[in-house]
C-alpha cells in the first residue's frame, strides 16, 4: 500500500502553526516514514501533483489568493484539517473585521508611523496583488473543514496525535491539557 499523502499550507497565518508541526522534534523522522509530502512549504512543492489524503490549513482567508488556495486544497485533499486559531476563528488578523478597509489602507500605507517611505502616497493596486476580502474569514466559512485543532499554535503533541490517528484510523487520545487553554 502506498503511503498516505499529506499537504500543508499557510494562509493568513504567521507560520507559527507550521513551526509547531516541526515541534514534534525527532518524530518528524517517523512522520516522513509514515507519509509522503505533497504541496507544502515544508518541502517547497508549489502545486499539487496528485490527490492527497490529508491537508493541514494554517490561517484563515484574508485575500482572494487565500480563497483560491483553500479551494484548491479542498479539491485535492480528502480530509481537511484547520490548524490553529487563525484557521478556526480568523485569529489576530480578524482584528480588522469591523473596520472599513479604506481605513485599514490609510493606516497601513498613508498615515501610519511606518509609511514615510511611501512618498508617492500609493495604496498598492498592482493587478498581480491579491485583493483583500471584506473581512478575514475562518476556513469553514469558505469550504467544508473536517477537523479542527485548537491552539495558537496547536501543541505539537496534538498535531502528532491527530496525524497518527488519521493515518492509522484509530481514535486519537487527546488529554485535556493538550486541547484546553486558559
Amino acid at each position, binding site marked *: 500500500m502506498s503511503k498516505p499523502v499529506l499537504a500543508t499550507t499557510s494562509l493568513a497565518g504567521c507560520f507559527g502553526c507550521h513551526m509547531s508541526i516541526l515541534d514534534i522534534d525527532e518524530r518528524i523522522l517517523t512522520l516522513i516514514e509514515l507519509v509522503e509530502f505533497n504541496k507544502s512549504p515544508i518541502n517547497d512543492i508549489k502545486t499539487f501533483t496528485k490527490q492527497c489524503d490529508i491537508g493541514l490549513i494554517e490561517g484563515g482567508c484574508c485575500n*482572494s489568493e487565500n*480563497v483560491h488556495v483553500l479551494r484548491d486544497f479542498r479539491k485535492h485533499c480528502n480530509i481537511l484539517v484547520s490548524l490553529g486559531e487563525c484557521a478556526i476563528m480568523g485569529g489576530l488578523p480578524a482584528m480588522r473585521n469591523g473596520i*472599513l*478597509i479604506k481605513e485599514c489602507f490609510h493606516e497601513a500605507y498613508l498615515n501610519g508611523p511606518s509609511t514615510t517611505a511611501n512618498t508617492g502616497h500609493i495604496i498598492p493596486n498592482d493587478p498581480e496583488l491579491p485583493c483583500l476580502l471584506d473581512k478575514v474569514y475562518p476556513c469553514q466559512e469558505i469550504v467544508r473543514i473536517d477537523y479542527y485543532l485548537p491552539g495558537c499554535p496547536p501543541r505539537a503533541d496534538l498535531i502528532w496525535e491527530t496525524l497518527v490517528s488519521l493515518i492509522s484510523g484509530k481514535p486519537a487520545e487527546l488529554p485535556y491539557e493538550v486541547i484546553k487553554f486558559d
Partner: protein
Amino acid sequence: MKTTVNKIIKKYKNDRYRLMDILLDIQEELGYIPEDLNQMIADELSISKVELDETISFYHFLTQKPLGEYTVYLNNSVTAGMMFREDVKKTFEEQSGVLFGNVSSDGLIGLFDTSCIGMSDQEPAAIINNVMFTNLTPFRVKEIVADMKEGKPVEEMHKQNFGGGKNSSDLIQAVVKNNIRRKGPVLWDPYEPGEGLRKSITMEPGDVIEEIKNSHLRGRGGAGFPTGLKWEFCNKSREKERYIFCNADEGEPGTFKDRVILTEMPKMVFEGMAIAGYAVGAKSGVVYIRYEYLYLRKYLENTLSELRKAKLLGRNIAGKNGFDFDIRIQYGAGAYICGEESALLESAEGKRGEPRDRPPFPVEKGFKGKPTIINNVETLAKVVKIIKKGSTWFTNLGTQESAGTKLLSISGDCRFPGVYEIEWGHSIYDILEMVGATDVQAVQVGGPSGILINPNQLPRKLGYEDLGTGGSLIIFHESRNLIREVVMNFTEFFIEESCGSCSTCRNTPFILKQKLEKILDGHGVVQDIDDLVEWSKNLKFSRCGLGHTAGNPIITSIQNFRHLYEKLVQRDRDYDTGFNLAESVKESCEASNRSTVV
C-alpha cells in the same frame, strides 16, 4: 448648563442610588447629557467617571449628544412589521430627509428604532419627545413631520381623539387605547380603594401571607413563582429593613396588560404593594416602570398623592398606628433586561442593568442589599382582591394548579386585539375564537422568550400545567412568512437587548442570526437546521433568563415548523457557506481603485 445639572444633583441629595433619576432629569432639561459634564457628575456623586459612562451607555434612551428637537423612536416589534411599519418608516425618512439612526443636518428631527414599546395592539407606534403616537400610517406621518417643520409642540400634534378610559383624563391625554375586550372576575370585581388594605390590617401579618399562600397565587410576570412563598422567604430574613418593588418594566414584546392595569386601576396596584408592606414589615415601595410609559408619569404621581391624602399611603395608614408605608416611582431608561428582577434592582440603584448572580435572591439580598419582594403589576393587583374576597373565592376560579385568572395581551392577526381577563384553563383554540382569528398558521405564546406553536397544538391549555405564560399571545395568519418576519425579528430583539455580560448570550444569537440569513438567502443546507438547534444549547450556560430563552424563537420554530426550514434549504448540496468571492473583494478594490478581477 452646569448650574442646571448641579441643581438636579442637589435635588437628589447627591445620592448615587438616584443616578437614574438624575440622568433622566438632566436629559429632560437639556435634551441630552453633555459628555463634558460626566466628570463633574461623577465627582458630585462620589463615583468614578467610568461608572457613570458605563451606566449612561447602557440605556437605550440616554444620550450624550442631541438627538434632534424632535426625537422619533419607532417601535420595531414584530406586530409593527405586520402593520406596515416599513411604509411608515420610509415616509418618515422621505419627509424628514434623514435616514433612521441619524439626526437631520439642521438638528430638527432624529429618527431611531426601538424595541417593543408595549403598544402591540395599536401598531405601528412611536414615541416622539415622550409622547405616544399609535396606529401610524404614511398619511399620518406626513402630517406629523409637517407639524415638526412648523415647530409645533408634540402635545398639540394630535388629530385623533384620546384613547378610552383614563387615557383621555387631564393627566394623561394620550391617544393610547386600552382595548379592554373582556373584563374578568378578579381585576374587574367591583372595589373601593382601601378595601383590601383595611381588611388586611385586621389580620396578623403572618395570616396575610398565609392567605396569599392559600390562594395559590403565582407571579404574573412570567416565571410563575408562588407569591405567598416569596413573601414568606422575605419575612424569614433577619434583616428588618425591607422593600417592596412593583415590576412595571413590561418589556416582553407583545405584552401590554400592565400598561392597561396601571392606566385603569393603579390604586389597586399600589394598595397591593402596601399590603405586601404590611405583611413583611416594609416601609417603602418602589414602582420600577419602563421609560416608554413616561406619558403616565403625572397621572401615577397624582394617584400616589390621592392615596396619601386618603391615608392609604404615608404614616399610620388605614388608621393603623405605626403602619407606615410609602411608594415612589422609579423610571427606567430603555432596557428589556431591566425587567429581570436582579437587573431591575441594579438599575434602581443607579447602575447598569446587569443581572446579579443568584443566589442570593432578592428576598434575601435585594435593593441596597436588603430583603426585597419584587412582584409584577398584575400579581400585586390580584393580591388586593384575594385579601378582600378570600383565598377560596380565588382558588374556585381557574384550574387545579392554576388558580384565578390571567390578563392576556393579545395581538397580531385577529379582529379584536387587546387585553382579556380570563380564567386559566382555556385552550388556545378557545382564545382564537374569542379574539376572532381565522386561518391561523402559528401562535407565539409568552412572547419571544416563549414558544411558537402550530395548529396541531391549539388544543393546548393556558395554565401552569401546560402553557404557563406572562400573558402575551401573538397570532400569525397563514399568509405570514414565519421565519423571515417572526423568528428573525425575535432573534434580533435578543441581540439588541442582551446586556452583554455572558459570552454565550452576547454571541450566540448573533451567530444564529447569520445562519438564519444564510438559510433565507438560499444558501442553507440540512446541516444548518441541526446546527441552529445544537448551537442554541450554548445559551443554557448564560447567567439569566434572557440568555436562557434567546434561542427559543429558533428552537421552537424548528420543533413545530421544521418543514418551513426544510423548504428553504438546498437538497442537492450538503455544504454551502454562502461565500461569494466577487462580492467580498468589492470594498477593497474600490478602496484601492482597481478593477475587481478575482
